[in-house]
Structure formats: C-alpha cells, structure tokens
C-alpha cells in the first residue's frame, strides 16, 4: 500500500514542458529576493533599458519603490519617465501599432515573463545576443532565433559573434568590440536584472516564504498538541 502511494506521488511530480523550442541548454542563474541591492540595480537596468519598449503593466511604481527600498524622490526623478502619478502602473508609452510597424511584433509585457519562462531562460536570453549582418536590425539571439528585439544592452556587453556550439549544445561567442562592462560585470548585471524580473513576476514572493515558515512552525506545534489529544482520548479503546 505504501508503495502505491509512492508511485502515485512520483507520477504526479513530472513537470509538463512549455515550448518545444528549448533547443539550447540554459545557463544556471542564482536569484535571491533577499538581496535588496541586487534588486535595486536590476530595477534601474529595467527602467532604463527595457521599459521604453516593454511594459510591466500589472506593477505599480510606488509598490516597487516600497518593496525595494527606493525613495519616492528617486523614482520620480530617475524612473517615472512615462507616468505622473506615484501609484501609476508601469505601462509603456509606445503605441502597440507603432511597435508592430517597427519590430514586426509588439514587445510583450514583461510582468510575468519569469513565470511564463524560467528565470534561467531569461538570463540566458539576455547573454546570447550576437551581431548578425543578415538580420534587419543587425542582431540575433542564439536562444531565440531571428528575434525581433535588438540587443539594447550592447553598449554594456559589447558586440559578440556566434562561432558555433560546443559538444553540449552551448553557444560559443567571440567578442569583437568590448563593451563598458567586463564579461563578469555583465553577467552580474544580468543576474540582477533577472532577479528583479523574478520579483516583478510575483512581488508577494518577498513575504511568502517568511509567512510560510511561521505558519509551518505553528502547524508543527498544533500537530503535537492534536496528536496527544487524540492519544489521550483513545486510551480507552482496545481490540479484543
């Protein structure tokens, strides 16, 4: 009987796959919502480099400020280019029709991107842009072939070219013109950005684990109490 239960549980834990397009393996990324400094750096990158095309339309500026410890003054000055009320949603000013004209596809909303795709996917995606003379805007991405998004971070990363794939399927690049960041700095920046996008996907995650731990401790106590209560009552039940 115990085995049966085990089989049932094991069978339940097989993840369903999203898209069939996962051709390249993904780079591991460490995300930690406890690291406020990282989240702040990620937020800055996001607002400066992504929000011009992508919205995060389910997120409010003031909520982000509160959660990440960014002052309202700072947000007003450096972040709210497109909005005027502190409680405004992080929408984008570019009209969708225009965006479609320019890129062929409207840039998708990024509020939930790490929940639609894995954080590892986003991190890998941001690292794998390369120069491609054949693409209309000059850029391509080895993880997302013929992507409509140009490499907006090339100033930071530099310009790289795809030289092939290694035996595990990871892409190999060759740096042609270095950017303002070293490769290590860029990876770290992308880790911050991914970290922020994870937060953006579920702000409640900041408190979810903490509350969960308290709830578990409380239930553990309750389990002990209820177990002994049951034992006490059942003392007088016997089997002949």
């Amino acid at each position, binding site marked *: 009987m115990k085995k*049966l239960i085990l*089989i*049932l549980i094991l*069978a*339940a*834990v*097989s*993840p*369903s*796959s*999203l*898209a*069939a*397009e996962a051709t390249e393996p993904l780079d591991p990324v460490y995300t930690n919502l406890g690291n406020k400094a990282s989240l702040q750096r990620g937020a800055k990158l996001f607002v400066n480099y992504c929000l011009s095309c992508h919205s995060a*339309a*389910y*997120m*409010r500026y003031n*909520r982000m400020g509160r959660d990440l410890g960014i002052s309202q003054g700072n947000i007003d000055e450096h972040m709210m280019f497109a909005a005027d009320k502190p409680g405004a949603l992080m929408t984008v000013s570019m009209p969708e029709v225009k965006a479609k004209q320019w890129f062929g596809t409207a840039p998708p909303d990024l*509020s*939930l991107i790490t*929940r*639609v*795709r894995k954080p590892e996917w986003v991190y890998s995606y941001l690292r794998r842009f390369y120069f491609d003379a054949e693409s209309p805007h000059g850029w391509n991405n080895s993880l997302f072939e013929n992507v409509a998004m140009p490499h907006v971070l090339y100033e930071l990363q530099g310009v790289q070219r795809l030289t092939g794939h290694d035996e595990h399927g990871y892409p190999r690049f060759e740096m042609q013109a270095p950017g303002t960041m070293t490769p290590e700095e860029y990876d770290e920046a992308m880790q911050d950005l991914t970290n922020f996008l994870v937060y953006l*996907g*579920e*702000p*409640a995650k900041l408190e*979810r*684990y903490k*509350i*969960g*731990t308290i*709830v*578990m401790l409380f*239930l*553990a106590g*309750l*389990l002990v109490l*209820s*177990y002994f*209560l*049951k034992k006490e*009552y*059942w003392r007088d*039940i016997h*089997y*002949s």
Partner: protein
Amino acid sequence: MSKFLEWVDRRFPLTKTWNEHLAEYYAPKNFNFWYYFGSLAMLVLVIQIVTGIFLTMHYNPDAETAFASVEYIMRDVPWGWLIRYLHAIGGSAFFVVVYLHMFRGLLYGSHREPRELVWLLGCVIFVVLMAESFMGYLLPWGNMSFWGAQVIISLFGAIPFVGEGLAEWVRGDFVVSDATLKRFFAFHVAAVPLILAGLVYLHIVALHRVGSNNPDGIEIKKNKDADGVPKDGIPFHPYYSVKDLVGVVVFLIIYLAIVFFLPEFFGLFLEKDNFLPADPLQTPADIVPLWYFTPYYSILRATTESLMWFVRGLIVLSVVVAFVRTSKPTAKGIAALVGAGFFIGAFIFTPKFWGVVLMGFSIVALFLLPWLDQSPVRSIRYRGWMYKTALAVFVFSFVILGYMGMHNPDHVSLFIFKNVVWAQICTITYALFFILMPLYSVWDRTKPEPERVNFK
C-alpha cells in the same frame, strides 16, 4: 445554557441531530489512513467556498479585464495572493483528496450493498466537481484556460448531428469568448457550489442511514451489545473528531507547504502558459488540461483508428461476460441487443466520436461498480490474488494514462513504446478492470472474514 438548549430543542431538533450524526453515531473503531479523506474533502470544500467568496469580490468576469483582475488580486489586494493560491491549489488538493477517498472504496468494498447510494451520490459529486473545476479554470483567462476550454468544448462537436449546435450552445458563441466566460463564472460561483453542497449533504445522510464500512469490510451492526450499540463501534464524537483533527493538521501542513513554498508545483498546479493572457491567435505548444483530467484526456487521444478493433473486441467481451453471469433470458436479450448496437456503431462512427464515448464510459463505469463487483467479501484483506492484481493493474493504468495525458502523444517517452501506444494499452486495461470484474471477483479465492474488526 441547558434552558436555552431546551428552548431550541422544542423548536428545532438540535440535540437530536447532534447525537444522531456525531455523539451517538457509532463508527467502526478500526478506521485507518484511508478514512481521513472524507472529512478532509469537506474541509477543502469549505476552504474553496470561503476563498472563492473573497476572490469574487475583486475578480472581473470580463474577457477584457479578467486576466488583469487576477494580477490585481495577486499584487494590490491585501492578502490577495494568499487567497488566490489557497483557492487555485485547493482545486488540485480537492482532487488529490477525492481520488484517495474513492480509492478507499475500491480497497474495502465501500460501494457494496448496502452503501450503493452513498457510492452513487459520491460518483455524482465527482462528476459535478469536474464540471466545477473545469469552469473555474477558464476564469483567470490565461492562454491555457482559453485553449483548454476551446478543446474540451469542441469535443461536443464530435457527437453526430447535434454536436456542433450543442457546442455552440454551451459556449454561447462560435468560439470561447466573453459570453462563455460570463456563463462559466455564474455556474462556477453560484450554481455548481450550491449543487455540490446539497449533494454532500445527501451523501452524508445516506451514509449515516446505513453506517460506515471499515477496513475489514464487515458489518459492525451484526454484533451489538445489550443497549443496541455495535460492539466494535465508538461514538464519532469525540473519538473520530479528535482523530480527524490530527488528519486535518497533517493535511494543512502539506497543503500550506505547497501554497507558501511551491505554489506552481512544477507547473502542475499552475501551468506556465496560464501566465500569458488568453490569445485566440496563439496556440500553446502543447494543450494540456490540469493533471487531474489527464487520464481521461489520454483515453480521448488514444482512441484512433488502430484502437477501434480493440474497442469492438471489448464490446463483444462485455456481452460474453453478461451472458456468463446472467441466467435470465430477458437480461441476455437486452445485453445482446445493446451489444449489437454498440458493435455496429463501432463501424459507423468515427474514432473521434468514440474517443468521447470511451472518455465518458471511463467515468460511467464507476457508477456501475456496486453491481460489477460480485465478490462474497468486501475488503481487499480477504480477497484473493485476482482482485489484488486487477486493482494494481487498474492503478497502474490510471497513473500511466495521467502521465501520458500531460505529454505530447507522439513523443517517444517511456521505454519502447510511443506515448500514444502506452495510452492505448492502458485504455484497454482500464476497461478490462471493469468489464472482467463480474468474473474475477467471483472466481477469486477469498479468505474467511473475521467476526470482529482488527486494526492493522
């Protein structure tokens, strides 16, 4: 206090009800692990209703804003995320609990005489519960919500002649749309929960009329003391109320651990594609229903042309079994006629239609269990190897079907066979569990049942 109680009792049977269903309801003293799930199912029903009420306060049943309103709940409503996770994961928890609750019936013969009505009401609850969760799943208006509903509703279209009209009538439109969302909302929050609550009430009333079965499958009412109390019975309250409390806490630990630490549960409880808003122009790479529907979905997809000869064989086999097990000429005549009708139908109608029929039968078969099972004993403890093997094969088939339903039918995924072949094999073994039951449950060499209950 007692004055007040007297006052009430003269006007309403409060003490009587309390005694009949709790303090003087004698339950067998040997309930084990499998007996927690009935009360847990009631707990989950309450959780779903309470969290559902709070979600309804903030949710917008409107195709334009439904998705955003769910994100609003997740971000802007105080504790909204918790309420929503409790409800979404509660749906999966409900099916875990109900599946285990039903499996208990198969283990200990709880569906057998005199508990047929308890079982039948349970089966109706199960069907209604599936409708409830199917409609609820459309409400967040994610891309999997949309395409899942699109695929399942279009199944009606496979029914000859009336199918297309029926599908349109269900949707209220030619495709899943705002009209569909609004009617599903009405059913999900009002109509179906009312029906469910009523059915659960009837389920309990029917159970308390005949009394609970137990892991030994023997009637405790056959052994009563001088006061007419079953010797192996103990009052539900306080004994089982304190015991169920332990079960409730253990359940809450598992359920809340998932809510707080793993709400997506590897994409099984919250599917990745449902974090994208519904998009009629963009089909998800694989349209998969939630995990608890995948066994039936698998049966649907497994029914292709190559399975049809087996389906015809199963029809013939059913008639043969009916002939072996009945001596009444009228029963034989009816079996032969119905069988012939199905057999001919298996040549006329398309495999797609038969997929829908088999999917329906896989659930209808549960309703027939009290009559298919003819064993002289109830509990698996006293059955022989045949029933044990059959049950193991059935559980295996169900799990494999569920697994295959989550994956693309054409991928080679398990050992030598393609996904769809596995699903076909398991569809057949699933059917055989029921079709052959009138034979093996009788042929099985059973052990004698004990006089009094044991605890193992």
